[in-house]
Structures are given as structure tokens and as C-alpha cells.
């Protein structure tokens, strides 16, 4: 066991998979110098034929990876900013995602799209702060958002081994996390399987990515008054609906904590699906970014538009409708 960072987990998972499978290669900007550190050491270990610095041509190198996959490789592409996925959106959503069905199953596109640092980076302003995982869930691209160091390792391994395109969002808010972990003992985390990070009986908080940790902190704060279960879906598409249903069977109350724009986000999808047919004894709630939010530069404004622990706390209390609510409101 050693104390490892989330960033190291990604770096280690990528290195382990490259060592295990010669078909795995890496494309991206500054991956040789490892500007983001995700690819640190890979050039030396695997050489320039498997670690390629690309020109600033997101559309072309994203399509290039699709072609390389059709010819038998398993490329991973690193994007330095979530907004870069917008440049490559046609190549991912309209090309890579559609190949398997439209060729009648003749071809597969095992490409991993790794976004290093999604969501707000304080001081980087609106074009560096998007959290667009729900866009990929809507079009149907497999999408994972690891919250923990272990899952960052286990999910990246599974993403690389998956035979379909997979987007992995590594939230800036999780990147600096550290855990005691021995990567050699971490099993791949299957896509589509969530995890109860904290068992509880009164309310289920579904938290996405880095917010899992804030949810756990709030659950601890409230432990005296309320028993909160924290469910981490880990994959936003395909979603672990049975895992969610099982949790709601226990609690009957739902609050989603999602650092993305409100309308048509995964938070709304979780509420909708629960409302359609899962056990709910109180109206479900969500804490998200506002509709259509653009994060302003100034730290005070940037934070004001991200879901907060206070908002989660209030939503949990309101959901449980406990007397603490009045207390919280007045005190």
C-alpha cells in the first residue's frame, strides 16, 4: 500500500495497459512532455511510435484514432480541456459511435477519450470549465466519471479494454485526491456498475465525480440527524439503474448532486427514471449548476454557480422533511 494520487492512478492505468497490450497507443497534445502529467514516463517506456504528440487538430486526430482502431489498435486520446470534445463532437458522436451499428457489426471502435481536468479550474474561466458528460450520455457514447483514486485506475483500465468508444472525465476537483492503494491489487471496474460509497437508510444521494467526496462529507455532518446513503454511479452511460433502484428500495428518498447544467443533464435523467418506476416516498431533488450556465472568471462567481455542500445539505433536509429543516432555515 502506498499513498497515491488520482493523477497517478490514471498514469499508472495507462502505463499498465500499454505494457499489457501492444495495441494500446496514445495521441494528444504535449503527451510526450506530459504537460498534464497523465502521460509522464510513457515516452521513455514505450517510445515515440506509441506516444504521439499531435498538432492542434482535434477533429483530425480524433478521426485518426477511429481509423487506427478499425485497423486493430486501441488508441487513447488525451484532451487538455473538456471544450476540445466540442471540436471533435462530430467525429465521436456521429462517426465513432455509429460505426458498429451502421456497418451491421462489421467493425468496432475501441478508443478511449480521456479528459484531464473537467469542470471548473479556478481562474481558467468559462471556456475551460465545462462538464459536458451528459451530452455523451444523450448521444449514447459510454461515459465514465471516476470519483476515487481506485476507480480512476479501475475505470480507465476497463475503458481501454472496452470494444466501444468510451469517454472518461477526470474532474479537476478530484485530481488532487490521494488514497492508500496498491494498484497491483486493484481489479478493473466494470462499466455500468455503480457503488454505494456510504450506506444509509433515509435518503439516497447520487453524486457524480468529485462531488462524491462532498456528498460523503455532508453525509458525515448530518450523521447525527439523518442516515444518508451515497451512491456513486461511476458510469453515467450506461447507468446502473438496478443499483439505484436497490438503494431507493432502502431509502425511498432521492437527491442528485451533479456539477453540470441543470436542463437535460444526468441529474434530471436520474430523477426522471426514478419517478417513472422506482420507490419514492418524497419528491426527488437535485443540486446542479443553473440552466445553461457559463462559469464566470472571478472565483466568487465561479463558485456561486457550482453545486455546494450547503445546497446539498438543504436539499437532504428538505427531502427528509425533518424538523432540522426549520432549524437550518432559522439557525
Amino acid at each position, binding site marked *: 500500500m502506498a499513498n497515491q494520487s488520482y493523477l497517478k492512478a490514471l498514469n499508472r492505468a495507462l502505463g499498465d495497459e500499454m505494457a499489457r497490450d501492444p495495441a494500446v497507443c496514445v495521441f494528444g497534445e504535449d503527451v510526450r512532455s506530459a504537460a498534464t502529467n497523465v502521460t509522464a514516463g510513457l515516452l521513455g517506456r514505450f517510445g515515440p511510435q506509441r506516444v504521439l504528440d499531435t498538432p492542434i487538430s482535434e477533429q*483530425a486526430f480524433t*478521426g485518426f484514432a477511429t*481509423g487506427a482502431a*478499425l485497423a486493430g489498435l486501441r488508441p487513447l486520446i488525451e484532451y487538455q480541456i473538456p471544450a476540445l470534445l466540442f471540436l471533435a463532437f*462530430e467525429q465521436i458522436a456521429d462517426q465513432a459511435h455509429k460505426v458498429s451499428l451502421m456497418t*451491421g457489426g462489421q467493425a468496432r471502435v475501441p478508443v478511449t477519450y480521456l479528459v484531464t481536468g473537467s469542470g471548473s479550474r479556478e481562474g481558467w474561466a468559462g471556456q475551460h470549465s465545462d462538464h459536458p458528460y451528459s451530452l455523451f450520455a444523450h448521444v449514447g457514447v459510454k461515459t465514465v466519471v471516476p470519483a476515487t483514486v481506485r476507480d480512476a485506475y479501475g475505470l480507465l483500465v476497463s475503458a481501454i479494454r472496452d470494444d466501444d468508444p468510451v469517454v472518461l472525465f477526470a474532474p479537476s476537483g478530484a485530481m488532487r485526491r490521494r488514497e492508500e492503494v496498491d494498484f497491483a491489487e486493484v481489479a478493473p471496474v466494470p462499466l455500468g456498475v455503480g457503488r454505494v460509497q456510504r450506506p444509509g437508510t433515509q435518503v439516497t444521494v447520487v453524486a457524480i465525480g468529485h462531488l462524491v467526496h462532498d456528498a460523503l462529507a455532508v453525509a458525515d455532518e448530518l450523521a447525527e440527524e439523518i442516515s444518508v446513503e451515497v451512491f456513486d454511479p461511476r458510469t453515467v452511460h450506461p447507468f446502473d439503474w438496478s443499483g439505484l433502484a436497490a438503494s431507493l428500495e432502502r431509502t425511498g428518498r432521492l437527491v442528485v448532486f451533479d456539477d453540470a447544467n441543470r436542463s437535460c443533464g444526468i441529474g434530471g435523467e436520474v430523477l426522471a427514471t426514478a419517478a417513472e418506476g422506482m420507490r419514492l416516498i418524497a419528491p426527488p431533488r437535485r443540486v446542479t449548476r443553473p440552466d445553461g450556465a457559463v462559469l464566470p472568471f472571478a472565483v466568487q462567481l465561479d463558485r456561486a454557480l457550482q453545486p455546494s455542500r450547503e445546497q446539498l445539505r438543504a436539499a437532504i433536509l428538505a427531502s427528509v422533511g425533518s424538523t432540522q429543516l426549520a432549524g437550518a432555515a432559522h439557525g
Partner: protein
Amino acid sequence: MPKPASAELNRAELYRTVRLIRRFEERAIELVRSGVIVGGIHPYIGQEAIAAGVCAALRRDDFITSTHRGHGHVLAKGADPARMLAELAGRVTGLNRGRGGSMHAADFAVGILGADAIVGAAAPIAAGAAWASRQAGADRVTAAFFGDGAVNQGVLLETFNLAALWRVPVVFVCENNGFATSTRTGDAVAGTIVGRGAAFGIPASTVDGMDPESVHAATAEAVARARAGDGPSLLECVTYRFDAHHTFEYAARPRYRSAEEVAAARARDPLDIQGARLSEAARARIDAEIEELLARAVLFATGSPHPDPDSALDYLYADGTRTRSAVG
């Protein structure tokens, strides 16, 4: 430039391919009119020399990517015309099991990675497949077909840069048929098409796209260069679209070009250019053979079953992942 095993055979072969494509398109248009093919097609008529000449210079294991106007490429690369026609008719026996249709035919068994409905979008895919082939130690070459309209698409120009930087064994085949739908090439392209390749250091040349043998010769050179590890080439094949942009034009009667202009262009028909190089008898033999082949293809396609609606989500995920269907 490597000479074909037998110039004679090659001549007949080239004619045969041109003839096959021309008649395939004519039969397909009949099936569009009769409603067997839904959604219409983008006829390749007039441009056959390009698909024929390019693919004659490729090996069976070489790759191609195709376009919305792709029937000719797919037939020339060796896909079964009957399964191609079945695909156009949306049958389970089609190349893509009826999932792709006219704009998306793929046949990985003969190196057809697929046709793309988004202009320019297949170019990086072709380059990536070409690069990966070389990484695997194969001397396979990939040909990427696209139209004159695609040279204005950013992804294509980005791909020129990647292919040149990494000396990717890809041949970029631009079919300049004078129009992007109703827009003339000259109204959309500043500078020249070959100049866009040259700007990235890619050897680029203009070829008579109406003569299968000129196209074949130019492609053979480019392919040899790619196999030798000398990187990409760009061929601008100058041609003319004899028929509609898409069969929907038959109803719309567009005004973007005159009947005289079309008639003048038709004076140089690849079918006659290549046909004139064969004896009457040889030509007649091939024509008859193709009529029979296409008659069988039509019967095969129209006689094949339609897909089962319950299979609509098949192949959505390569690993068989099943997600939620329409009604929860």
C-alpha cells in the same frame, strides 16, 4: 511506374469496372423510381473512370474510405454487386445487413472501411487506418475518396497535415466533378485543389478523371510511393457529374447548370473512352456478362428478406451492451 501484369487484361478489366458501375447505377435508379430503394441515391454516373482507375491500382488487402456518392468505389474495390444492391434495398443480405444503405456501404472483407455521409469526415479515419497498418508492419496502402467540396472542410486539411508529418501511406483522391450540390467548385475554392496538398508538402497532381488508364497510371505511382514509405499523395481527378446531385433532383429540376453544359460534358464519356480501346466483340462480351450479373443481383436484392424490427438495436454496441429501449 510499375506496369500492370498484362496491359490487355487491364484494359478489359478497366472497361468492365466502368461498365459495371454505369449499369449498376442505372439499375439502381430504376429501383429508386419503383420504390424498392427508399431515400434515393447520389448517382456516380460520369465519374466511373476514377473508381475504376484508382481501385485497379490497389491490392485486395488495401483499404479505401468512400463518400455519399460511393457506389462506384465499393464496386470497383470488389464488393459483391448483389449484396451491394441488397444493401441499397435495405435487406438483411446487404453488405451492412441493411443498416447502412446507399451512403454507408462497408465491406471489411475486401478493405472497404465504409462510406461516409459527412463531407470530409472519412479522411482522418482513412489516414489513421493507413498509419496503423504501417505500425503493424504491413505495406498496405489506403485510398481516401472525397469530392471537391471536401477540400473546404477543416478536418480534411488537418488530415493533410497529419498525413504529411507522419508520412502516412495514404492516397487522397479528390473527385472534382465541378459541383458541390449546386455550388461550382470555383465559387467555393480559393486557390487550387492541388495547391492545398502542396502547401503541406504532399505531392499533388491533376489527372484526367474521364480516362480510366490515366487515373490508373497516376494512382499506381502514388501507391508505389506510399508502399515505399514515402508518404501521402493527392490526386485531383477532374471529372463531371452527368446525372443529378441526388435523385431528389429529378423532381426539383434545378437551374444551376444548363442542358447544353451537361451535353457537352457527356461528349467525353469514360465508358466510350475505355470502350474504344477494346474490340467490338470483347466489349459486347463484357456488356452481356454484366447485364446477366446485374439481373441476378436485382433478383437477389428484391428477393431478400427485410430486417426484423426487433433487431433494430443490434450492433449498437460492439460488445453487445444493451441499454434501455423506447418505453420504460
